[in-house]
């Protein structure tokens, strides 16, 4: 095959002596090229990534952030996705992570939203100023035409000096051309005066992948990059930004053309966007969205799917299998409950029999066989009681007992938490992809300002109703440490997670409408109260809202699926160890008798101060392990409606589950986590007592 003219051109370009613009690693011609995808938020970058990397993707969390960098392979390229950013700098976590990945790139694929050149070309020109070998993909050409606009792509390519390819990523149009022109990626036309200034700075730098890029970062006042080179940042950011902004405006004026009036769909999307913003229409839309999430995640997933998975696969398949393994060599007594469905379709125990294995099941095969015979063809639940007389027995209880790290934790993570997390991230991805989330943040901004937060905090708060642990991790997306503290406090003090919500709902149904209302008022008042008080106590002030609102559009399913998968995976990777650690801690407390001491400590408060049965103390303390344990324990007590409200108030305000505590420790430090944890005890019991006295 003969070389095309353009390929020959690329080779000619490579031979040019201006090799300082070439990243060092590619000049050495390593076998693989690092291709980094860069673009503003919501430009459809993930569609490109999926195309290039196929199904197999590595997801890695950057140390100290939840920002995920996905990484895949395409031919001799290593392809890296980066979070959406408006410019290369260090304003927030997303930017810091994107910055480091971009700075090490050999080739940059810059994805640009064709309908939003004024915004997107700012980043493009910054990348060009960094002298990366790059190629620009003009995405969303269909939306551009729908808006009645046209872009002179050839002119844009001439001005920028890098290949520009028109693409409609969702319809997979233009990918062939993009692939074939990837080899033409080259440094574009930068501002000569700026380049001269950068050249003089480059000689002072330590060796790095792309000296021009690092020099530009230093000139734009980036402290982290300056420090890496042992230099003081030079704050010319504003002058450079203004000059770049002017160049963008000139380019846009040259390449955009209004052809015809906007099509109906574009107008509708704008109207819908307006409706979601204004409270009068926005609140009903929000209520509808929440109702939908509740129906799907709260009812379908949390009750039906989880109910089935947890019992059938966790309690009846996985846990007995593990316990039987330990039972072979451990003194154990196994109680077999035979279950049958009653007229309502609920399981009832119809028969019980206990089998004792004082030397483990291995020592008595005959009895084990008899037990198997007894269980055959029946629906059963097996309850294991391991002897704790020896150290080994205690260890078995820690690993495979009631709260065992191998038994309960695995059931909890795989069959309860995983489906819920998938459900919540799915909705989050849907709402994010259709452009609703930033508008919701805008609508509730005023409300959250009262608690020292800005609109962005609505995301962790909504997630909190799913899983407080997951939501606490998400507080990282907030701008300042102050906002993170406030959000983490609200979440861990006052938001009941979905594990609790199901039981709370069931108990409130027993208590009746009037008491349900009282409960909601109490919890809401606490939520606002806690936020407001912490806002008053903490020094400093929170940052105001500044976000861009992408056009409303139909979510793209492949995108949503990928996002859900990546987020779920990284959550499970990050949170699982803490669930295991928590289970080990609680099991150890159980085995050593500390747990009972603790429960007895709280009995007097529970009976005298709260007016509840002594057994409720056990439920409260169990709530430390898993919040639904606490709520479920209450379900079995005979409580009056008033007692229901008191006890639910206490468990809702009570300490976060042990996994949340672990994440809280990691995210917010020892001092803050402990303040929240001990504060929860005090708050829950004092508010509970007040409610008991008043009602």
């Amino acid at each position, binding site marked *: 095959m003969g070389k095309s003219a353009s390929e020959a051109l690329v080779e000619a370009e490579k031979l040019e002596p201006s090799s300082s613009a070439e990243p060092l690693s590619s000049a050495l011609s390593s076998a693989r090229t690092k291709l980094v995808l860069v673009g503003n938020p919501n430009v459809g970058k993930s569609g490109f990534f999926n195309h290039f990397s196929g199904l197999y993707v590595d997801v890695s969390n950057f140390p100290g952030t939840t920002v995920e960098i996905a990484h895949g392979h395409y031919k001799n390229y290593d392809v890296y996705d980066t979070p959406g950013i*408006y410019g290369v700098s260090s304003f927030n976590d997303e930017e810091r992570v994107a910055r480091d990945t971009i700075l090490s790139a050999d080739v940059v694929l810059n994805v640009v939203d064709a309908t939003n050149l004024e915004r997107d070309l700012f980043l493009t020109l910054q990348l060009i100023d960094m002298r990366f070998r790059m190629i620009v993909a003009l995405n969303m050409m269909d939306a551009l035409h729908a808006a009645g606009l046209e872009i002179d792509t050839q002119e844009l390519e001439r001005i920028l000096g890098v290949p520009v390819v028109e693409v409609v990523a969702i319809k997979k149009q233009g990918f062939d051309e993009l692939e074939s022109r990837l080899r033409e990626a080259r440094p574009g036309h930068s501002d000569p005066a700026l380049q001269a200034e950068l050249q003089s700075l480059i000689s002072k730098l330590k060796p790095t992948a792309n000296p021009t890029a690092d020099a530009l970062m230093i000139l734009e006042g980036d402290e982290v990059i300056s420090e890496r080179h042992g230099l003081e940042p030079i704050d010319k*950011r504003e002058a450079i930004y203004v000059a770049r*902004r002017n160049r963008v405006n000139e380019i846009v004026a040259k390449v955009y053309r209004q052809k015809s009036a906007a099509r109906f769909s574009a107008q509708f999307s704008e109207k819908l966007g307006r409706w979601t913003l204004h409270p009068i229409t926005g609140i009903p839309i929000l209520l509808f969205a929440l109702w939908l999430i509740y129906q799907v995640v709260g009812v379908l997933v949390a009750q039906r799917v989880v109910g089935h998975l947890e019992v059938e696969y966790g309690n009846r398949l996985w846990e007995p299998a593990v316990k039987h393994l330990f039972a072979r060599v451990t003194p154990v007594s196994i109680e077999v409950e035979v279950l049958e469905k009653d007229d309502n379709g609920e399981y009832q125990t119809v028969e019980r029999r206990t089998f004792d294995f004082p030397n483990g099941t291995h020592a008595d095969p005959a009895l084990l066989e008899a037990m198997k015979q007894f269980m055959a063809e029946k629906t059963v639940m097996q309850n294991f009681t391991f002897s704790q007389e020896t150290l080994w027995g205690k260890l078995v209880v820690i690993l495979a007992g009631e709260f065992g790290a191998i038994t309960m934790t695995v059931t909890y993570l795989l069959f309860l938490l995983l489906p819920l997390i998938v459900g919540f991230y799915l909705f989050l991805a849907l709402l994010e992809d259709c452009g609703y989330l930033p508008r919701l943040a*805008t*609508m509730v*901004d005023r409300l959250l300002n009262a608690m020292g937060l800005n609109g962005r905090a609505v995301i962790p708060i909504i997630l909190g109703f799913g899983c407080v642990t997951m939501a606490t991790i998400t507080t990282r997306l907030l701008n300042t440490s102050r906002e993170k503290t406030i959000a983490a406090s609200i979440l861990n003090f006052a938001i009941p997670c979905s594990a609790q919500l199901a039981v709370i709902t069931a108990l409130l149904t027993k208590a009746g409408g009037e008491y349900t209302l009282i409960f909601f008022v109490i919890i809401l008042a606490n939520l606002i109260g806690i936020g407001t008080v912490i806002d008053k106590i903490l020094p400093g002030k929170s940052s105001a809202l500044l976000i861009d609102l992408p056009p409303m559009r139909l979510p793209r399913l492949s995108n949503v699926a990928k996002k859900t998968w990546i987020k779920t995976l990284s959550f499970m990777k990050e949170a699982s160890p803490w669930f295991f650690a928590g289970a080990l801690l609680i099991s150890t407390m159980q085995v050593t008798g500390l747990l009972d001491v603790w429960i007895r400590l709280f009995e007097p408060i529970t009976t005298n101060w709260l007016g509840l049965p002594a057994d409720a103390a056990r439920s409260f303390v169990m709530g430390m392990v898993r919040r639904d344990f606490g709520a479920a324990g209450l379900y079995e007590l005979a409580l009056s409606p008033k007692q229901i409200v008191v006890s639910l108030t206490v468990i809702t305000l009570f300490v976060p589950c042990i996994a949340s505590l672990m994440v809280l420790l990691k995210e917010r430090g020892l001092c803050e986590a402990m303040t929240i944890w001990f504060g929860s005890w005090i708050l829950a019991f004092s508010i509970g007592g007040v409610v008991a006295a008043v009602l």
Partner: protein
Amino acid sequence: MILLTEVKKGSRFKVVRIDEKDIRTQLLRFGLGEGSEAVCFERLPLGPIVIKHQRQEVAIGREFANKIWVEPLER
């Protein structure tokens, strides 16, 4: 010259001055600088101002909007 918080919904204006450096640089990246023209797309009661600049909407919290000086333009 008035503050962005005082601009009527639907009216056009020109950004004259932004009183905080941080907002200035961040808005520049969104495509808005001193001298840019935009429209007030929506005003939330006591809340953020949403402006529309070319085809892009940006929500600006009230506290920031109180630092942005604009010149109303005739339609």
